[in-house]
């Protein structure tokens, strides 16, 4: 029986996106089931215009060069790989309503659901992480 990893992404920015996607990708490599619940600013990561929305925190712009040097794939590519590996991307309905967002603002692979859907997945998780 494989492991299950439940992740909550509640912050935006390139840094958070990488923290979340790195752990998610490594987990899928061990055949773990991975579900990520995106809420508040974390929703930026799975928007269909994520590349425009995601930036480095102010004062941390120099990370960009380091990421390039270390050959880290762009966030969009990481998300694409995650989707191919079966990672569930769950957008929080409540925060979407607060922000005036609809399903059309997100990548096609995103499922929209509430806290209960995530909890249902997380109750059986071996690890739960919050970013």
């Amino acid at each position, binding site marked *: 029986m494989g492991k299950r990893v439940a992740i909550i992404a509640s912050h935006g920015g390139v840094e958070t996106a990488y923290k979340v996607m790195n752990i998610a990708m*490594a987990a899928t*490599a061990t055949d773990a089931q991975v579900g990520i619940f995106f809420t508040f600013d974390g929703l930026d990561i799975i928007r269909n215009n994520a590349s425009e929305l995601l930036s480095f925190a102010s004062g941390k712009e120099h990370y960009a060069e380091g990421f390039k040097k*270390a050959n880290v*794939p762009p966030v969009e590519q990481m998300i694409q790989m995650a989707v191919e*590996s079966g990672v569930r991307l769950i957008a929080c309905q409540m925060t979407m309503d607060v922000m005036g967002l609809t399903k059309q603002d997100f990548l096609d692979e995103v499922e929209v659901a509430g806290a209960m859907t995530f909890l249902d997945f997380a109750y059986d998780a071996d690890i739960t992480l919050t970013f």
Partner: protein
Amino acid sequence: MKAYVLEQVDKRVDCRGLSCPMPIVKTKRAIDEIQPGQVLEVSATDPGSVADVKSWAQRTGHQFLGTIEEAGLFKHYIRRADLSDVKEMKKHPHTVSHKHLLQKLSEKPLILDVREPMEYSFGHIPGAKSIALGKIRDWIAELKEPSHAEIYVVCQTGNRSDMACQILHEHGFSRVFNVIEGMQNWQGPIEKNVAL
């Protein structure tokens, strides 16, 4: 002793220049494309891959053979395990523990290591003879008549050595023992012979 030149690699994956988690992600994809028993070579420059590939293999149940480093290039070798291979069958009744074999080592007993040469070269019991399971009948034929000396047979997990023991027994070898705990749990002395 001959150093195996690692020619018996079935698939190679190039992760040079890639950072975490890409070497692991690519390793996982590559291992899914080979058959159980085949060997994957992962080339990487990320020093973090040394610990990561090893722990990935342990976690997923595949057999981590070892890493060779040369001028900042790491080559990791992994043998794909057959994770569904749990069939029950008749077992050779005579087994020995590692503890018992360790006590016997000073007497220089005949130890047959029936794993593949690549596995053997990444670490075996000093003095053990490398006869892959598939070659055991040839070895028996060469001997011309069965030996009644004690023979200790070892592999990675105790399964292939069990089959080898049964084959030896069928051919009239009378004192054959399966080193049941296998090399995966061996804490005694180890000899290696690998080179690029």
